[in-house]
């Protein structure tokens, strides 16, 4: 478990840094894919198997493919399509370091919670998840479930309207 954790943490850090620093945008999408896989492994390590499967299916299977399609449609493969503007780079580094400093300080000032070890969890089955999604009582999520379905319908219609040929 420790070895798996070390690999996953290193993969998240290295590949997310590479995602935002590489010059070729197709490589950026590929590194994003590796980062998303590492996040899925984190979900599996947390014993949320369904969430890890959703992460792989939706992100690695859907979103990254969508990114690659749109990159190939809008840029010439292999070209150094982006020149990073120097004016913005320092603001970006400043914002990132400031965020890391403030959040890191906030983390370290809550030490007692942060060093808790992983407790045992009752097995969360698919049946529990289905009951939670489709019930209205305490711990039920029927309203957000329906809201997401309406949102997806609106998104499909919006994508068709925006992208159709005129």
């Amino acid at each position, binding site marked *: 478990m420790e070895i798996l954790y070390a690999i996953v943490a290193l993969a998240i850090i290295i590949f997310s840094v590479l*995602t*935002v620093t590489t010059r070729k*945008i197709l490589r950026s999408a590929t590194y994003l894919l590796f980062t998303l896989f590492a996040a899925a492994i984190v979900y599996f390590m947390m014993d*949320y198997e369904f969430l890890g499967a959703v992460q792989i299916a939706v992100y690695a299977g859907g979103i990254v493919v969508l990114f690659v399609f749109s990159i190939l449609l809008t840029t010439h493969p292999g070209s150094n399509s982006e020149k990073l503007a120097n004016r913005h780079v320092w603001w970006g580094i400043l914002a990132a*370091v400031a965020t890391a400093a403030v959040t890191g300080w906030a983390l370290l000032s809550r030490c007692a919670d*942060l060093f808790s070890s992983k407790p045992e969890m009752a097995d969360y089955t698919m049946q529990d998840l289905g009951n939670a999604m489709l019930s209205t009582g305490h711990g039920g999520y029927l309203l957000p479930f329906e809201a*997401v379905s309406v949102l997806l319908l609106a*998104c499909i219609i*919006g994508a068709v309207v925006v*992208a159709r040929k005129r």
Partner: protein
Amino acid sequence: MEIKLLYYLVPSLVMFCCGLYGFLTRKNMIAMLISLELMLNAVDINFTVVNRYLFPGSQEGMIFTLFAIAIAAAETALAIAIIINLYRVTKKVDIDEAKQLKG
């Protein structure tokens, strides 16, 4: 060695800061969207890990992450539709070129 809660939050913090840096510095709109996905995923990891470590009896964080993934997928699809439509008009996907959205 036992894996503590903090050990998961640090990679996720690095991931979020990378996403923030990329979102502010990239000119290509698709690259900005990729950075946005990094930030969303860092937040999702935080929700799940805090749920698992501090509140193992309830599943709110996990279910919130499920809904966040669904909404992120919808948002990405719509944003890419807009970007490709913009590319048809201006032949560029740089954020500096996107001064008007009218066809």
